[in-house]
């Protein structure tokens, strides 16, 4: 075989790889995420009169029985309310805590700021259960076990790193010239914050809020240890069906309830972030 042939074959292989690789990855993702969701959907509609068992590929009979049961006879409605309330409050608290901290770490040349940047990520790497056991004792001692305050505190602890990390990077990457230009033209601190910092970190703020919200919505370990049994959220209800009294059908219903709002949030936020970032990224600064 001559040289030209080898080359053109190599080129063909590369082109094929270019198509096959993304396609293959996409397929894996679809299978990994799609199939469980599909099964959850199917399981949630199984009619308990006609159990779904091997070797049937699909349930024999579909009904809304499990959905009705979960909404009528469990604390799910209250838990959904709790979850959203907690996620909302946690996001606000994270925002209030993260904004000045991120500003200090990102814009001011503080001694040891690199050290603080690592410290602030620790809650992300600590195993939730390990942290929960000791934190639970502490919060119990403080008398906030089983209160909304206590749960918001632990949710803030685990979600804050996401918000902080994103905002610190945002603040760091803001050109000093822009800030100087604003003060040079007569802007005081409040105007600089409102008209320069805030619009520039808005994409990061949206992304951070999204991560915070979702983390809070899905947080189980600490919620369970600090909140149970007084405060239940969607995940604690979900886990209660996964223990000894394992009920796949009901767990499917609850997991879908947990999944759907997060999915919607992700899509909406992603749209928002993209358009905002385009503006900032393309501005020749």
């Amino acid at each position, binding site marked *: 075989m001559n040289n030209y042939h080898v080359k053109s074959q190599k080129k063909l292989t590369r082109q094929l790889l270019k198509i096959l690789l993304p396609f293959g990855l996409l397929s894996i993702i679809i299978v990994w995420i799609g199939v469980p969701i599909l099964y959850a959907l199917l399981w949630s509609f199984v009619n308990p009169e006609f159990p779904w068992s091997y070797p049937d590929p699909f349930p024999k009979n579909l009904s809304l029985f499990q959905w009705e049961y979960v909404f009528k006879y469990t604390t799910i409605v209250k838990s959904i309310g709790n979850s959203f309330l907690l996620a909302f409050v946690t996001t606000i608290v994270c925002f209030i805590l993260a904004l000045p901290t991120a500003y200090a770490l990102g814009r001011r040349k503080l001694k040891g700021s690199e050290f603080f940047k690592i410290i602030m990520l620790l809650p992300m790497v600590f195993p939730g259960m390990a942290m929960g056991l000791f934190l639970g004792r502490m919060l119990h001692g403080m008398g906030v076990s089983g209160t909304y305050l206590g749960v918001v505190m632990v949710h803030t602890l685990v979600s804050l790193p996401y918000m902080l990390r994103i905002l610190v990077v945002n603040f760091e990457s803001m*050109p000093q*010239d*822009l800030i*100087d*230009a*604003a*003060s*040079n*033209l*007569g*802007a*005081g601190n409040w*105007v600089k914050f409102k*008209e*320069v910092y805030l*619009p*520039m970190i808005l994409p990061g703020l949206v992304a951070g809020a999204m991560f915070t919200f979702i983390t809070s919505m899905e947080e189980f370990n600490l919620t369970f240890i600090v909140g149970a049994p007084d405060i239940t959220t969607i995940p604690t209800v979900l886990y209660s069906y996964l223990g000894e009294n394992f009920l796949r059908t009901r767990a499917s219903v609850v997991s879908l309830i947990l999944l759907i709002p997060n999915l919607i949030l992700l899509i909406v936020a992603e749209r928002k972030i993209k358009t905002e970032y385009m*503006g*900032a990224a*393309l*501005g*020749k*600064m």
Partner: protein
Amino acid sequence: MTTRLIVNGIDKTFGDFQALSDVSFTIEPGQFVTLLGPSGCGKTTLLRVIAGFLEPEKGEILFGDKVMNDVPPNKRNTAMCFQSYALFPHKTVYENIIFGLRMRKVSADEQRKRVKEVMEMVDLVGLENRKPYELSGGQQQRVALARAIIVRPEILLFDEPLSNLDAKLREKVRVDIRNIQHSLGITTVYVTHDQAEALAISDVVIAMNKGRIVQKSDPKTIYNRPSTKFVADFIGSANITPGTCTEFAGSTAVVDSLYGVLRVQAADLTPGEEAFLCIRPEDFVPIFAENAPHAVNVVTGSVLHAVYMGNSLDLFVKVNDHVVRISAAKDCPIPEGSQISFTVQPDKICVMKG
């Protein structure tokens, strides 16, 4: 409205690095002054001290008779054009330009009037609602200029504003900047490392090196009479040779240099004194048969390279083992390898003591 700027004994250090040491000068109202020097010479630091972004350890900045040291940047009434333009990326051209007026609480009517005025002045009419990233580099530069001049500052500051433009545009914009500054009469400090730009645009050039002012002169003087080797070398190209004075009579000295014995017009040299001579390439004139008898300071050498530059023919001539650069007329028939003689008038030789 025009203001005198006085910089008095400014010291500024960053850690161990002395960025500015004992910098003093005065800029008369309405003057266009350039701070010129290589990168790291302290020129941008000085500009930032004047704008108030940096606090000097020692010395004073005065606008007129007001000491500005304790006045924060947003109260100084300076306006700066940044090298990066620093346009607010989330604001439109119009919003960018009126920013300074809003901060100064100028009435809406007045705002509209002045925006219209400056937009015409910098030729941006029709682009009001664009975002900065939708503009070309030249347009962004003009928005930055408009945003600065609209506030009618006491002092206008430029930090290498043209370095991101291509060469052709740079020449056009620097003329525009000069004309606008002239018509407004605002005292201006302009930072650049481009010596041609500095000569073309300024009333006064301040050459800086290692945090110190080396020379402050009008463009002609700084080019023709550089006070040190650094200035001679940094501005334009120069043939620099050490020399020893052997005779001094009237206002003419005879100096023994690397290029031979030269007659130099100088104010004060004593026999035996050592100094440096600076001779600009275009002041060396090749000698042909017709002008030979009248020539003084004749130097002879062989042409190593002849480089055709378009507007001149640059010769690199080997004289006593040293290379001399000569800028000859563009159609001079001098081939590489030939022997040539050339001359320089005594008053074209600049004597430098350091």
